[in-house]
């Protein structure tokens, strides 16, 4: 039983890491109706910027600030050169543009900072916490726990930012209705540049955590593929949805990886590991058949 809980807790903590990437998607989707496929590439760019700046001799804090500056510049450039010119195009076209954007970043980032795998040390170590190990005989990684804490902090900060600042209110207004927001004098284009910057910040935090865990490498771009099922499970427009979805996906994925392949092996011949790649998608898909707008998504009403 303690093994079950160990897997469950490990899955939940991994899910928090997915949630953080998903959060970046949700922010941009809420404010501009764009499903930003490039979020994974942004995570890669952010992590690579931090490592690249540190290689050039900058201390960690400076590297983070520089990386944030890069993400800001990137967000503003995206708004100016792509989004602004695609106003009034169907959302699917915008989505495809972000696929193009992710290819662009995947070429640009390694050109600026090199493409070899590098470690990123942010002062957290991936080892079990002795107290929990002694008391319950369950391995809980210190790193994962700290990452979950950082994610929780990030969500609280974002929630406060959205709820209580002037800019946050403007963001929520834009998310509700572009036209109404424009008509009361909210500068839409500034807001979009801003929200891409915030998404860049989220990408920076998740990029550093993922990078510190698995090394800064091209595989960081695949975090987007991990976050997508989280999104459709939680709903594209909901911050709590991204968190809850991440927890569900993380836990069920790890449990499935442990418990499903042996069952399949007893039914068929062969080795059935590696179901992590598709299991979250199929689960999210089955879930969608029951609730097409996701757990916390807004119910969509079609009008002719």
């Amino acid at each position, binding site marked *: 039983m303690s093994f079950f809980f160990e897997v469950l807790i490990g899955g939940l903590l991994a899910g928090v890491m997915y949630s953080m990437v998903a959060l970046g998607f949700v922010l941009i989707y809420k404010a501009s109706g764009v*499903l930003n496929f490039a979020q994974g590439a942004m995570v890669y760019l952010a992590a690579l910027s931090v490592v690249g700046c540190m290689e050039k001799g900058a201390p960690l804090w400076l590297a983070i600030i520089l990386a944030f500056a890069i993400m800001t510049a990137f967000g503003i450039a995206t708004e100016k*050169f*792509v989004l602004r*010119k*695609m106003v009034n*195009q169907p*959302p*699917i*076209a915008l*989505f*495809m*543009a972000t*696929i*193009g*954007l*992710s*290819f*662009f*970043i*995947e*070429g*640009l980032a*390694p*050109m600026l900072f090199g*493409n070899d795998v590098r470690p990123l040390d942010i002062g957290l170590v991936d080892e079990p916490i002795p107290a929990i190990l002694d008391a319950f005989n369950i391995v809980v990684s210190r790193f994962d726990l700290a990452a979950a804490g950082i994610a929780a902090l990030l969500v609280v900060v974002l929630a406060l930012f959205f709820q209580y600042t002037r800019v946050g209110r403007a963001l929520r207004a834009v998310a509700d209705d572009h036209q109404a927001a424009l008509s009361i004098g909210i500068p839409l284009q500034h807001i979009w540049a801003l929200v891409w910057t915030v998404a860049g910040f989220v990408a920076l935090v998740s990029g550093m955590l993922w990078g510190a865990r698995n090394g800064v490498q091209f595989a960081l771009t695949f975090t987007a*593929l991990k976050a*997508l*099922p989280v*999104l*459709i499970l939680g709903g*594209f427009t909901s911050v709590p949805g991204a968190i809850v979805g991440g927890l569900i996906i993380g836990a069920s994925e790890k449990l499935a990886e442990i418990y499903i392949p042996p069952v399949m092996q007893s039914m*068929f*011949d*062969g*080795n*059935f590991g*590696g*179901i992590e*790649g*598709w299991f979250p*998608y*199929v689960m*999210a*898909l089955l879930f*969608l*058949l029951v609730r*097409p707008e*996701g757990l916390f998504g807004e119910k969509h009403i*079609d*009008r*002719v």
Partner: protein
Amino acid sequence: MFYRETGQFKTTYAADQQIFPIRQDRIGMLLLLAVAFVGIPLFASEYWFTAILLPFLIFALAALGLNILTGYAGQLSLGSAAFMAVGAYAAYNFQVRIDGMPVLVSFLLAGLTAAAVGILFGLPSLRIKGFYLAVATLAAQFFIVWCLTKFPYLSNDSSSGVISLPGITILGFAFDTPRSTYLLVLTLVLLLALAAKNLVRSTTGRAWMAVRDMDVAAEVIGIRLMHTKLLAFAVSSFYCGVAGALYAFCYLGSVEPDGFSLDMSFKILFMIIVGGVGSILGSFLGAAFILLLPIFLDISLPAAASMLHLPFDNATVSHIQLMVFGALIMFFLVVEPHGLARLWQIAKEKLRLWPFPH
């Protein structure tokens, strides 16, 4: 001056409804076919057949399939490579497991198998749409490739799912040179393209377009949504499946499931974006563009680098390729969302008035 339909009168319905109503178009098309069937086989080298023409035709067919689903029926799919994989493996299994199975029949059955799988993964489209559906098609992409890797039966017990395809023999004639393979693929692709062209101007095609433009409105005017959407998934997967079978049998000769990756799906998607969403011609133009661009960059970038004395290595070239790809996609979506096919149409409009603008 030369491209003008003045004086060409249509006296029958059949004449009015033909695919190329303008005489100059028909002559141009015949010339193009003559070049494709006679000129190219006479003069092209082996490199051209194996490195450019075969992949061009095969990817054009896959892009055509995706264009039917995304361009005409409006259902964005990110799993086209997976349906190609289904086609490739189905054709292989029909060939290996049934003695004396004609190759063309196994291609056809491969297409039908892919269509069945396509319907299965198209079922969610009845409940969900837009982004949710696009993400759902990713499930097909990952699940199918995983199945092909993990179930040894599907690859006839070969290790890690790699299959080697037998040669193609039809009615005793062995298609073993690049030239004859090219002619076979060209014939099949043209027949399927003709079928697609006719399909999209039929009732079915118009129903697809109505669903694409607004599915609720389409339902209100009496179009059966379920039927129409699933048919689009089936036809699209059929084309992708045949393309996959051709890709395995005629182009590579040996494939593995991981070859049909998400990157390949994206590549096919880029083909229809650049070529023209909702255009048969666009699928061909886009496939040519996306396949030729890396070859062009491979040749031109090192040359440019040596001219400017920049230190370029292979990694840099591939990074620049990615950037150019990404930038082009954004450029096309911003500047000309209807792609190269639309540019061709504009050129034709201009040509009709040229050289007198009135």
